[in-house]
């Protein structure tokens, strides 16, 4: 175990998997010479060569599609999009090609490919560099969707993603890149998909989160704990597959559910979770399911305007207090 930054945990995962398997390679804008816009691929080009850490032109549709083609030929591309917002430039290759080729071919081929990208607001990056599109891609069958909440989570989940034989959309949170976490050294440290992490346990409420919202919820829970309130905090880890079993079990115990997700509040993860679990927990609920998401407006530039739109520990704390 060592204490390293989230971005270095990602780099470690990439390095270890590239060392372990010659078919793994990175590709994307500025991943080579620069080592990635957020420094997640530093040194990989020097270590593994140009072909295995390929700097591309600004052609998202083109190089995402090349990843698909290379995956069909047995390689394991890890394609980096500099910002999650840029999936929109490559959406044909992501949704119409990558996610569907296995199905359309009747299972003749598989597409073992990972697309890594930062998500989320908080950096005054305005409306085209702050979005959280994990729900968009979760809506399209054929891709797994991963939203790691810490350095160790990022490392273990990325290694699983690279070893998975299906397309994986891997959303890193840009506000976590420089945060430090205890991260296991073990080269075979992987985290299975579809198994949520119980971060804290308590009897009063269930809080379901993913990505950075897990950390924000932890902060709120600390304050609540001091006031004698206990919460089950469930960090989803993956949106697809979704671990409804853990949520249902917890809600049956607590009777209350708050879902916190950085995607826009409407038509997203929270509505999906609430609906999915409802048949199982309807008679156990002691209050309406509640959710916190980013307000349904584009992310503004000014911190004065941006911060109030995104869920944080204070909002989580307030929501829990209101529900109890």
């Amino acid at each position, binding site marked *: 175990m060592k204490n390293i930054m989230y971005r270095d945990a990602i780099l470690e995962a990439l390095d270890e998997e590239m060392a372990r398997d010659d078919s793994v390679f990175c590709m994307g804008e500025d991943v080579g010479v620069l080592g990635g816009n957020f420094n997640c691929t530093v040194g990989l080009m020097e270590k593994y060569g140009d072909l*295995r850490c390929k700097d591309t032109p600004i052609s998202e*549709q083109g190089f995402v*599609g*090349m990843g698909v*083609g290379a995956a069909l030929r047995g390689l394991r591309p890890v394609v980096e999009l500099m910002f999650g917002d840029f999936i929109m430039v490559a959406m044909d*290759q992501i949704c119409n090609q990558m996610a569907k080729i296995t*199905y*359309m071919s009747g*299972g003749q081929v598989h597409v073992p490919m990972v697309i890594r990208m930062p998500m989320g607001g908080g950096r005054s990056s305005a409306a085209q560099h702050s979005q959280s599109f994990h729900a968009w891609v979760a809506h399209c069958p054929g891709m797994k969707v991963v939203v790691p909440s810490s350095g160790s989570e990022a490392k273990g989940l990325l290694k699983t993603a690279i070893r998975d034989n299906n397309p994986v959309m891997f959303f890193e949170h840009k506000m976590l890149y420089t945060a430090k976490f205890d991260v296991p050294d073990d080269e075979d440290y992987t985290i299975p998909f579809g198994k949520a992490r119980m971060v804290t346990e308590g009897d009063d409420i269930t809080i379901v989160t993913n990505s950075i919202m897990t950390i924000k919820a932890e902060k709120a829970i600390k304050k609540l704990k001091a006031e004698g309130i206990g919460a089950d905090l469930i960090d989803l880890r993956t949106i697809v597959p979704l671990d409804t079993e853990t949520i249902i079990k917890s809600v049956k115990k607590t009777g209350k559910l708050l879902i916190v997700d950085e995607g826009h509040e409407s038509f997203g993860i929270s509505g999906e979770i609430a609906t999915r679990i409802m048949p199982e927990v309807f008679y156990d609920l002691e209050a309406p399911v509640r959710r916190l998401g980013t307000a349904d407006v584009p992310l503004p530039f000014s911190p004065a305007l941006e911060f109030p739109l995104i869920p944080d520990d204070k909002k989580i704390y307030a929501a829990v207090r209101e529900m109890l």
Partner: protein
Amino acid sequence: MTKQEQKEMALKFYTIMYRTRRFEEEVFEFYKRGLMPGLAHLYLGEEAVAAGVCGALEDRDFIGSTHRGHGHLVSRGADLKRMMAEILGKETGYSKGKGGSMHIMAMDKGILGANGIVGGEIPIATGSAYASLYKGTDEVTVCFFGDSAANEGAFHESVNMAAAWNLPIVFVVENNLYGISVDIRRVTKEHHIAKRAAGYGIEGITIDGNDVSKVYETAKEAINKARKGDGPTIIECLTYRWQGHHVGDPGIYRPEEEIAEWKAKEPIIKLEALNFLTKEEIDEIKESVEKEIQEACQFAEESPYAPESEAYTDVFVD
């Protein structure tokens, strides 16, 4: 080329082109009889492009194909029975009926798949070429697409990267003049796609796409060049589709005289006119191809549909 070699080539290409022609005619028949779900985009009239290009490939090579892909697949040697069954949506089809006409894939023949998105296969085929470079093997990937796909961003992005990195790929543009109803001359100033090659620093060649030997020779040279590591080429094959964009599109947007003019110089007649083959040889080819086609049609028609449960498989693999 010796006379004997000419004869062998003519036999080979006549067989492939006639097989494609008859396959497509039967697809059309299935459509008219109401036995084919959805639509298909027929390759009738363009047979020489696929035949000539695929004839120049080795078994280990790869192709990327389009919505008008039957000809590419037949020419590449895909199983006619499984193709026709897929087009009819049957369980015995290449994709168990999940793909249909626009998504036939046959990895055992190096066919990376037909594609329902215009230009969608271009980055994928380019990625296949990248994989060959990466592995240090000498397979070449050929990417087929139409003139309209060349106006998609995917074309520009892919050709640029393929050129920059000398990828072992050949881009084959089937310029049939129309994107559904829109005449290329109405939406581009420069009508010849191959001229764009200069902008990427690679070679672009425009040829008569209905002349199978010309297609073959040009493709062979470009494929050899790609195999040697000397990078991509754009080959623009001028050709014409006889039918509308898809079955059921009467194609009224094209002048009758234009259709007649192109039909007069269609690939099969063109090859016959060279007199490399005797009438007996041609009849023999036709007879044997007819047998294959009828077998494929019968197989497809008699095959069952997959059970409903099949719809839920192959979304993910283990």
